[in-house]
């Protein structure tokens, strides 16, 4: 019984088509992202094994990829994964206050998930939006200029927005 839906499979197939026929493995990063999204934001060994079968590659090669790139999650995460950049430009623009405020509001530390399973707070490296620092990423979106000293309400608004989506 496959754990990967038909729509995810066809999505993966679209990625496979981008690469030479004998280079299916090239689609592994996309495939892992797709199945992770479908599995509430994290990967399991079973899912990785299915990806290996689908793309005709050794299972260990899938594990290597899944554990190398920081956007794959190998443990359960909350419905919303809030990725806070604390690298230099964000740091200079008070990312510490962003972290403090998020930790305070959510009642969890970096790397933890709220008890209700809504939020995971994660420290990440440079998100590449340095001129809009400090920045966090949630799902497909960036939220910028979050310095609480300058924009005191932005983080509250962000959390309210995310809660509203749930």
């Amino acid at each position, binding site marked *: 019984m496959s754990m990967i839906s038909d729509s995810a499979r066809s999505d993966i197939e679209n990625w496979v088509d981008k690469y030479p026929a004998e280079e299916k493995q090239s689609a592994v990063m996309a495939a892992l992202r797709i199945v992770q999204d479908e599995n509430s934001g994290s990967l399991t060994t079973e899912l990785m094994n299915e990806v290996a079968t689908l793309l005709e590659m050794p299972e260990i090669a899938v594990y290597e990829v899944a554990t190398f790139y920081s956007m794959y999650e190998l443990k359960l995460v909350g419905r919303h994964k809030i990725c806070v950049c604390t690298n230099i430009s964000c740091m200079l623009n008070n990312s510490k206050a962003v972290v403090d405020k998020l930790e305070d509001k959510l009642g969890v530390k970096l790397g933890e998930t709220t008890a209700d399973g809504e939020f995971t707070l994660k420290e990440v*490296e440079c998100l590449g939006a340095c001129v809009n620092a400090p920045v966090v990423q949630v799902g497909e979106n960036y939220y910028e200029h979050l310095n609480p000293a300058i924009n005191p309400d932005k983080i509250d608004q962000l959390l309210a927005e995310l809660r509203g989506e749930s």
Partner: protein
Amino acid sequence: MANQVCFRNNHLENSWSLSAYQSNGGYEVLKKILSEKLTPEELIEDIKLSNLRGRGGAGFPTGLKWSFMPRTVDGQKYIVCNSDEGEPGTCKDRDILRYNPHQLIEGMIIAGYCIDASVGYNYIRGEFWEPYARFEAALEEARAAGLLGDDILGSGFNFQLHSHLGAGAYVCGEETALLNSIEGKKGQPRFKPPFPAGFGLYGRPTTINNTESLASIPVILAKGGQWFLEQGLPSAGGEKLFSVSGHVNRPGNYEVPMGMPFSELLEMAGGVRDGHQLKAVIPGGSSTPVVPGEQMMDVNMDYDSIASAGSMLGAGSVIVMDETTCMPRVLTRLAYFYYEESCGQCTPCREGTGWLSRVTQRIEDGVGVAADIELLDSVAGNIEGTTICALGDAAAMPVRSFLKHYRDEFQYHIDHKKCMVESDW
């Protein structure tokens, strides 16, 4: 002058759309090349003339790089765009993808034409979902308009272009790690030689260029290499995108002539944030050596001038720090970054970045010892020049430059177990 190359369309409404791009001359150069059958050789000559130097950080002349491709050898070749923008301080390519994706597409098609590559991939970092979506939409538009795909504009020239999304790994910005990543492997750099021009993606000849470099191509060829050269300096042509971040009033991406005095660029960015003084600048992204503020005020934004100040232009990522900045704290964060992002493949980087991170953290935490300063310098020196890729050097350079210029602050941290300066962040 400003905003003449990659940002030339940004003022247009929906600048990312095909219609906006075409309203400002977009795809005209491609049409000309294909209809007049301009030869790759003459196009490459014009790019050489422009002295466009690679915008990803290494500054290697783009025209020369293209000329290395064995274009007359049969078989598949590839053009790959490096949009894996991840060097702390750098965020210019993101805006090209968001606001001017068609110019990149046109540049890649022309690059494919010049190096005889019928397939291209744009490696976009995984976090850049919105820019990826913009780029994908632009690809669709271009394909629908017959500008991309088989038999482009009836010329018989075929070029397929795809995105490849990363998934979180700074090291994939290293070109051979990026190729491995496209191949569905861990993003571990390959040792060179062989170089990608001989053995690249899937073992085929491949050229990898930065987003800004490729997006500059249509403008260079439209206005001529000579024009581009004249926008900048003889040693490096054109306007260049500078990401100015940190303690400035108007952080942002500024496309200005190569060689602009730093002081002018700082002014464009609104100057140091109100009520504060310039302390230090990292001029080219986190890997480049830090330069004290007063020294930086005499420097121009080009390769040679910045080199004379002991640093590098890099990707043009200018990180400005004011007097509230504790330098050990900044270095601790940067050292942690390289430790986090080391791929783990080769010994000096795998082991050395962790060592640097732990020792800087120790100093930052007020438990450093007197010998730690020499230790940091020595460990960084031992990483330099011994690794497979440049990440080792990138980790070492900040350490050595911070110690060179701000040794007293490190000493203070060790002696007093606290920062020398007060900060509000």
